């Protein structure tokens, strides 16, 4: 397949289970390397970088939101949000992270550990963590999949709001047709191909 996603575009990838959505997302984000073909991210050919090179690229240009949140259990909400800035060695991680937590409505819970937060709250922390480094692209893998309707709606709202204000590219994998419809482009996948 050939696929180009432009700067500031919002793209939803939909399709039945096993269609290859997550594999595509992993390849686009440089979490995996294709056996054939090439993926370019932020102007760099991913398969020509080593693990550390791709990690550095992710640190500089990529944010992630996962279906099951994947916060670091040993760090507080604030420390989780600070992590991308610290990994990219940027200054004032604490201030930027605190501000962003405030924005997602968790200013009061900055010192809590993931296990002390509800699912919706954890995903809001994850969202803050994804955008805190002002990445060029945010990849979201079923961001509302594990949440109840109300929390899911809140996350969706925040996701698009933050995306718009930071002018980032958003690539979203979802089952949720409503969520997909809010994106600028919808890609349907089946049997490993774009339909």
């Amino acid at each position, binding site marked *: 397949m050939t696929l180009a996603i432009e700067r500031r575009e919002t793209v939803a990838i939909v399709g039945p289970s096993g269609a290859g959505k*997550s594999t595509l*997302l*992993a390849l686009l984000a440089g*979490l*995996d390397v294709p056996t054939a073909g090439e993926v370019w991210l932020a102007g760099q050919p991913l398969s020509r970088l080593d*693990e*550390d090179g791709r*990690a*550095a*690229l*992710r*640190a*500089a240009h*990529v944010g*992630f939101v*996962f*279906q099951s949140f*994947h*916060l*670091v*259990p*040993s*760090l507080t909400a604030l*420390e989780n949000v600070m*992590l*991308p800035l*610290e*990994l*990219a060695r940027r200054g004032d991680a604490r201030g930027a992270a605190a501000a962003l937590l405030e924005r997602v409505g968790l200013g009061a819970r900055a010192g809590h*550990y993931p296990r002390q937060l509800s699912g919706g709250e954890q995903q809001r922390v994850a969202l803050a*963590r994804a955008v805190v480094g002002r990445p060029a692209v945010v990849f979201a*893998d079923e961001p509302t999949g594990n949440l109840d309707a109300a929390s899911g709606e809140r996350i969706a709202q925040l996701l698009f709001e933050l995306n718009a204000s930071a002018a980032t590219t958003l690539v979203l994998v979802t089952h949720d047709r409503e969520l997909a419809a809010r994106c600028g482009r919808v890609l349907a996948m089946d049997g490993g191909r774009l339909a």
Partner: protein
Amino acid sequence: MRLLMLASRSLLREWRSGELAVLLASLTVAVAALAGVGFLVDRIGRAVTAQAGEVLAADLRLESDEPLAADAEQAARDGGLATSRLTTLLSVVFHGDASQLANVRAASAGYPLRGMLTTAAEPFGAGTPTRALPGRGEAWPDSRLAAALGVRVGDRLGVGALTLQVTRILIARPDQGSAFVEFAPALLIDDADLAASQLLQPGSRARFALLLAGEAPALQRFRAWQAAHARPGVRLADVADASPQIGDAAVRAARFLALASLVAVLLTAVAVAMSARSYVQRHLDGVALLKTLGASRAFVLAHSVLQLLALAVAATVIGSVIGWLTQRWLLAALAGLLRTDLPPAGWAPVFAGLAVAVAMLAARLAIALVARGTLGEWRLSLQFLAGLGAAAALLAAGGYGLLRLARRWRAAAPTGWRYGLASLGRRRAESVAQVVAFGLGVLLLALLAILRGELLRDWRTRLPADAPNYFFLNIPVAERDAFRARLQSEGARVERLLPMVRGRLVAINGRPMSALHFDSPRASNFAEREQNLTWAQELGDDNRVIAGRWWSAADTGRPLVSVAEEFAEALGLRLGDTLRFDVAGESIEVRIASLRKVRWDSFRPNFFLVFPPGLLEGTAGTYLTSARFEPRSPGALAALVRAYPSVSVFNVSDLLAQVRAVIGKAAVAVQSVFVFTLCAGLTVLLAAVQASREERRYEMAILRVLGARRRLLLRNLLTEFAVIGLLAGVLAASGAALGGALLARTLELRYHFEPGLWLLGVAGAVALVAAGGWAATRSVLSSPPSRLLR
């Protein structure tokens, strides 16, 4: 049936998920370590015992002044023991006009059951070892007897009603001992000739001995049989009775080996506890599920027990095989050092391994029982365990406190370090458990290292190459100085000369000995026989006062006595007790002023009972000394004997060699068991690190997705493990120093604190835990970040 199927099916499921594999692996390593050390300790321990047995020419001796009933020998043979009869009596031996009082020893086939006789063609010649015994009509006089009678090989000797032909000269026998109860020279004859000699008459002072040798359980069974069929005047003697020197070395080696086994058991316990933690946690979730599905409590319990049992059995089988192979390989590598063949491996370690695996999994607290069941030194084990319990509590408290501190620092720490510290802080229970586990592991290994070092050093310095090899007894007072001068002029290094008088203990605290009853053979020996007494102003450096005080010049002539620990223990004597002795018809009552620990293996003259000067000088006595003496020719010694006919000469070179052999073997045992335990300990600790792998793998993957480089992840891991290692190391090294000081006493060592060793312990723990943690979790560094998607 339903239960069995369900249990096996869920076991299979858990196996497929890979969770069980980690637990099974660490359990297997643990059992292998335990079984390996167990096999080794078992085999080397038996080799040391067998070597020590040489001094008795047997493992056990049943002795009596009356002929022994045949049932004892029958019982011993039925129990699988090798036996031999040995009858000794004093008789005059004739050669032409010459005659000499000799100790006639009639031995039956098999003698000596341990060690070898050495014989030569001429007195004091260089002997060659032999398995033969004099046949019927033959006699082997020892060098002293041959020299005294002037006989040569081929001559005839008259013994009782018999005339025997001298076919060899006896140079050494393993059981010549150091107790010098036999002053007379020896003549070895065939047991079958004894009756024909008509020496055994009613009232003849003969001693009858049944020599026994075999495996420890068989010996134990015979001891039990003997206890049940005790007859007055019949006593069992073991190595410690025959030679305190060798008994001492064997006992200390056995204690060290027992400690090493205990350490292996404990390391195993620690490791299994570590890896069982997370498994049990997850298993409990499954149990909760079964309960919601309506399973009864009994069903759930049986289900869990069955599963764990299956796991334990599997680990035991695999672990025992690995352990057995390892010790085989180790012994093959050590074969050159050990020289003699070791007895084959026993089954005990396998059962110990199974017991531990089952006990650990079923109730992770059964250590104490297992340790007690597998080790004879149970009192030592219990003390040791109590100490370790305290150490574990201290480690936990220390670990907890230090982790709290680490949590405070972490806000100030840079990213990589902060993440490591944060992991520690969050998994606080886990981290404390790890500090305790590693701490105990390092503590045990450091303790073993300290004791090993002290023991080996002590053994090396105790028996110098030029230790005295001759004893000279019955030196007349008038000839004392001349004799010493003569010896020195022959190039001998002469030790102290001590006076010696014979006396009998007749009362303790005013109660006559006849009114007192003693159970132990040793005590009755002390109580009934004449004792050798001496007096001295100075205390030799091979004697140490352990209670009371040694006398000063002002105490000269006061009625005091200093008693050796063994003598006091056997008779239950305390400081301040009064003893009455009958010395050459004169009664003398003295108070115990001090108890002494005697280093018998100094091979210098030593006595159980020492009096202050000015008390016994009136009694007629003789002198005794020992010396390092290398006669320039065989004739030199014979000439000395002729010049001082009343002096008895004892060559203890063979005993010295025996002690050296036992110590050498014990040292190799201690060394190799230590090295093996060390390796086992490291392996087991590594297995314990594996337990937290899954969790780490997950966190590493998150960090990787967020763009962390490998170096940062590595720093995280190392920080975490290094902090655990540092905490464990500081606490463990301090604990080991303390434990070493306490334990050194039971091994009769003097402990010196070594700051270098302490530092080495700390540094070792940090390096060990960091390296171990790195090795065990290295693979998570490259765990693919894509696994976080779904």
